[in-house]
C-alpha cells in the first residue's frame, strides 16, 4: 500500500461561539445580561470521514458550501488539527497548498522580495529559492515588474506571481482550493496546463471545485461530501451527477 493520504473516521469539530467574548468587557456584561452571554454551538465540519487516496491520484472534492471540502484540505495540510479519528500523510512529503494565492505578500516590497519572502514561508532556504527563481519569473511572465512594489501590481499580476511561486515549489501533494474562481481565461489555461503537468509527473492532487468541467479535465476520481460526511467516492461522471442531484434537491427545497 502506498497511500498518500488516508483518513479513518476523521472528524473535525469547530466551536461556533455566538457573542464570543474576546473582550473582557463583554465577559463582564455577560454576568448580568442573558443576551450577552456566550453560547457555544458545535459544528462538525468533517464527520467520520474515511477515504484513502493513493500516490499519483488526482481526486476532485465536490460538495455544497460548508460541506467540509476546504476543512479537509486544511486538515491534510496540517493547518487544523483533527478532533478525532486518524489522518495519515507521508512524513516527508512536501505539501503544496494553493488555498489562497499570494497570501503573505507585503505590498511595499518588490515582486522579487516577495518571492523570497513567500518561498521562505514554505520553508525553502535562500539557495533553494535562488535555484527556482528564474523559473518563477518566467512562469509568471512578469520579468519587467520584479523590481516594482507589489502594491502597484494589478490583481491579475498579483495572482500570477502567487501561482507561479506555488507551481514551482514542486510539492509531492498538491492541495487546490477554488483557484479557478479567479483570473482571466489565459490564467485559467495556464493553471490547467500546470496541473496536468503535475499529474503527469505522478503527484497527488486534491482539487476542490464547484465547476464540473474543471473537475472532469483534471481528476480521475471524485469524492462528494455533504455536511462533513462522505456521500460518494468513485468515478468522475457518477460523482458529478450525484453532486448535481444534490444541488438540485436543495435548490428546490424552500427555506434552505
Amino acid at each position: 500500500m502506498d497511500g498518500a493520504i488516508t483518513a479513518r473516521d476523521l472528524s473535525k469539530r469547530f466551536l461556533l461561539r455566538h457573542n464570543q467574548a474576546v473582550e473582557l468587557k463583554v465577559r463582564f456584561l455577560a454576568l448580568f445580561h442573558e443576551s450577552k452571554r456566550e453560547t457555544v454551538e458545535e459544528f462538525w465540519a468533517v464527520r467520520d470521514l474515511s477515504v484513502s487516496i493513493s500516490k499519483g491520484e488526482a481526486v476532485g472534492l465536490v460538495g455544497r458550501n460548508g460541506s467540509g471540502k476546504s476543512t479537509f484540505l486544511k486538515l491534510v495540510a496540517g493547518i487544523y488539527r483533527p478532533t478525532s479519528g486518524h489522518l495519515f500523510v507521508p512524513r516527508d512529503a512536501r505539501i503544496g497548498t494553493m488555498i489562497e494565492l499570494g497570501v503573505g505578500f507585503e505590498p511595499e516590497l518588490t515582486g522579487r522580495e516577495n518571492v523570497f519572502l513567500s518561498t521562505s514561508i514554505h520553508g525553502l532556504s535562500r539557495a533553494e529559492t535562488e535555484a527556482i527563481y528564474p523559473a518563477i519569473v518566467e512562469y509568471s511572465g512578469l520579468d519587467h515588474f520584479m523590481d516594482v512594489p507589489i502594491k502597484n501590481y494589478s490583481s491579475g499580476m498579483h495572482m500570477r506571481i502567487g501561482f507561479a511561486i506555488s507551481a514551482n515549489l514542486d510539492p509531492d501533494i498538491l492541495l487546490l482550493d477554488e483557484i479557478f474562481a479567479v483570473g482571466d481565461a489565459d490564467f485559467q489555461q495556464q493553471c490547467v496546463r500546470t496541473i496536468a503537468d503535475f499529474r503527469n509527473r505522478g503527484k497527488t492532487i486534491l482539487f476542490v471545485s464547484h465547476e464540473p468541467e474543471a473537475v472532469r479535465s483534471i481528476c480521475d476520481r471524485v469524492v462528494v461530501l455533504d455536511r462533513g460526511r462522505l456521500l460518494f467516492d468513485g468515478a468522475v461522471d457518477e460523482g458529478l451527477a450525484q453532486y448535481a442531484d444534490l444541488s438540485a434537491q436543495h435548490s428546490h427545497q424552500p427555506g434552505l
Partner: protein
Amino acid sequence: MTDMVDRAAERSTIWSTIAGLARYRELLKNLVLKDLKLKYRGSVLGFLWSLVNPLVMMGVYTIAFKYILGSKVEGFVFFLLLGILPWGFFVGSTNMATRSITDSSDLMKSVRFPSAVLPIATVLFNFAQYLLTIVVFLPLMLVAQGVPLAASMLLFPVFLGLQVLFTVGVALVLAAGTVFFRDVRHLLEVALPILFWVTPIVYPLSQVPGPFRPLVLLSPLSSYIVAYQQIFYYRQWPSAEVWIVGAVYGCGALLLGMRFFLAVEDRLSEQL
C-alpha cells in the same frame, strides 16, 4: 510502505518547535529584513530616525530630572542612556508582538509554518534596531565620559542575550494571548508605564529606600538595566543578585512562554 505521520497524533514539543524554528530560519531572517526595509525605505533620513527618538527622550528626561528635580546622579545623560535604550527595545517588541499573529491571520489559515516565528521575528527586529542605536551611542558616550574599557564590559552580550530570552518569552504569551483576548493590547498599554517607573531607568537603584530595593530589582526589566549600569556606568562586575534575577527571569520567561504557546498553538488558526 512510506513512513506515515498521523495528523491527529502530531504534538509539538519544545524540541520540535526549536527544530522547526531552525528549519525556518530563512523565514525568520526575511521577516526581520522585511520590517527593517518597510521602516526605512522611502524615508530620507532612514536609520537616523531611530536615533532621534532616544535623543528626544533623553533630552526631556534630562531637563526634567537633572535641571528641574535636581538629580544628583553624575553624568545623568550617560546613566539614562543605559536604561532608555533597552527599555525602548522591550516596549517596541511587546507592542509589535501583540499584533504579530492577529495581523497575519490569512497566512495562519492557509500555510502551515511554525507560528512562533511571527512574535520571535518582531523581537529580533526590535533587537536589531536596539543594537544599531547602541553601536552609535555607546562608544560616543564612553569617549565623552572618558570611561576606560574594562574586562567587565565583555559581559554585556551575556545580559543582552538574557534580555532577548526574556522578551521572547513575554512576546510569545502576548502574541498568542491576543488571539483569545483582544484586551491583552490594552492591558499592555496600562502595564508598560507602571513598569517604566518601577524600573531604575531615571533613578539609580541606590536611591530606592532600602526595604523597597529588592522589590524594584524584582520588577521584570530591572536586573538587565541594572546590569548595564553596573557594567558601563559604575564600572563593576554585575552583582550576584543581578545575575540570579536576570538568569531566572530570562530562562523562566522563555520556558513559560514556550509552554503557554505550545498549549494553545493548535487552536490559533481556527480561533483567528
